[in-house]
């Protein structure tokens, strides 16, 4: 079963999904990765306003390839989330409700997700050509000088992802490993 989510995410929507759930997201995603995170954290530290209203929003960790003429965006799959771990809790505190990336998160991020009631999703890494098909429009909203790392507003439809960390402290990566681990390897 696939849970349909629309942005901005409400507290009810966030409470309604659990680790392992498949979701299809429709609405707006904001792109940000390493360089944009550094700038946003600096902005928050200096007490200034972020370049977009982050409350209830989803950040997608992606640095797309340039679009061919007539396309909204190039290849656009998730990047490794762990690099953003130290920069994530302040954004959750500021009202961020969802994140899409790939791979696992630190204990500190998982605790912050529980504390601020937000969800960490993963999309399939290395499926950038496929995921781009769910993105109808892409507009730069901040840090244009960062090129692929600029903050973009993506209009997405039925964007496929799974819940990795929910607000209840569950972790899909731990669950998956526990379920499929073999103590004795199969031969061949």
């Amino acid at each position: 079963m696939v849970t349909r989510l629309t942005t901005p995410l409400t507290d009810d929507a966030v409470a309604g999904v659990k680790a392992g759930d498949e979701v299809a997201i429709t609405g707006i995603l904001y792109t940000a990765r390493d360089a944009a995170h550094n700038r946003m954290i600096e902005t928050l530290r200096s007490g200034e306003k972020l370049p977009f209203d982050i409350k209830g929003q989803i950040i997608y960790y992606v640095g797309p390839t340039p679009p061919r003429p007539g396309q909204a965006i190039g290849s656009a799959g998730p990047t490794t989330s762990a690099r953003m771990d130290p920069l994530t809790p302040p954004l959750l505190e500021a009202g961020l409700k969802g994140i899409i990336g790939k791979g696992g998160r630190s204990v500190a991020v998982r605790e912050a997700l529980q504390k601020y009631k937000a969800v960490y999703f993963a999309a399939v890494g290395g499926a950038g050509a496929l995921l781009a098909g769910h993105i109808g429009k892409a507009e730069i909203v901040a840090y244009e000088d960062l090129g692929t790392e600029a903050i973009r507003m993506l209009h997405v439809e039925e964007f496929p992802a799974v819940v990795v960390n929910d607000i209840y402290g569950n972790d899909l990566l731990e669950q998956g490993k526990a379920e499929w681990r073999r103590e004795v390897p199969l031969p061949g």
Partner: protein
Amino acid sequence: MREISATAVKETVAQLCQEANYYLPDDVRAALEGARKKEEAPRAQKVLDMVLQNAELAARNRVALCQDTGTCVVFLEVGQDVHIKGDLHKAIEDGVSKGYKTGYLRSSMVRQPFSKRLNTGDNTPAVIHTEIVAGERLKVTIMPKGGGCENMSRLVILKPGEGREGVINFVVRAVEESGGNPCPPVIVGVGIGGTADHVMYLAKRALLRKVGEHHPDPEVAELEQELLNKINATGIGPQAWGGRTTALAVNVESFPAHITALPVGVNLQCHSARFKTAEL
């Protein structure tokens, strides 16, 4: 003595950069299809389906398989009877620049990585490995190497007494600790022997072998199979969402080592295992 023009090298490199990024190699696709048939975890089956569908879409639309079009790693085999008319390394850099800029590929290289991190704008410089070989041909291989998997590389100099078991523990742990970061199912490149620098080169070069082909030395081939079985027993699975398919292959390259040392290097390759070769 055969003469090859630098312009021919440049044009070949530009084309290889694009083809490597749009088209998944046949052996990798076949390995993914084989894994899909054997995979038991429903979520893992879906991931493998999406990855295969992604390869079809990328090829059809000439769009990068992955947005991370990598550091451009170049393997050159230069025949000792070849004369390059012009500057060989400049021809390669020019080819990478042209291939990435005209192919809608991402430029991911940043200058002065410890401070300003300014994007070079055309994905140069490439990382170039040059070998002089017999003959009068020039062989060029382009490997766009993504950051997610490259960043999970590991190096250790084991004590000789740690032996085969030490190697196995180190390699399996490297894959376990990498979790979903390198985009499993991965191809595991393992170098054994040589020096600290050479063992990492061996690990990377091991990734150029076709998926499913074992090392010709039966003892090395047996080590590869045991590593693959152990890695696929971890339960990590595609994207680390749980499953049987954590690695598609383990390729080991072994080289003699100093009497004091047992160097082991691990270089992971994501499922989007891209490379393309041409001979001039």
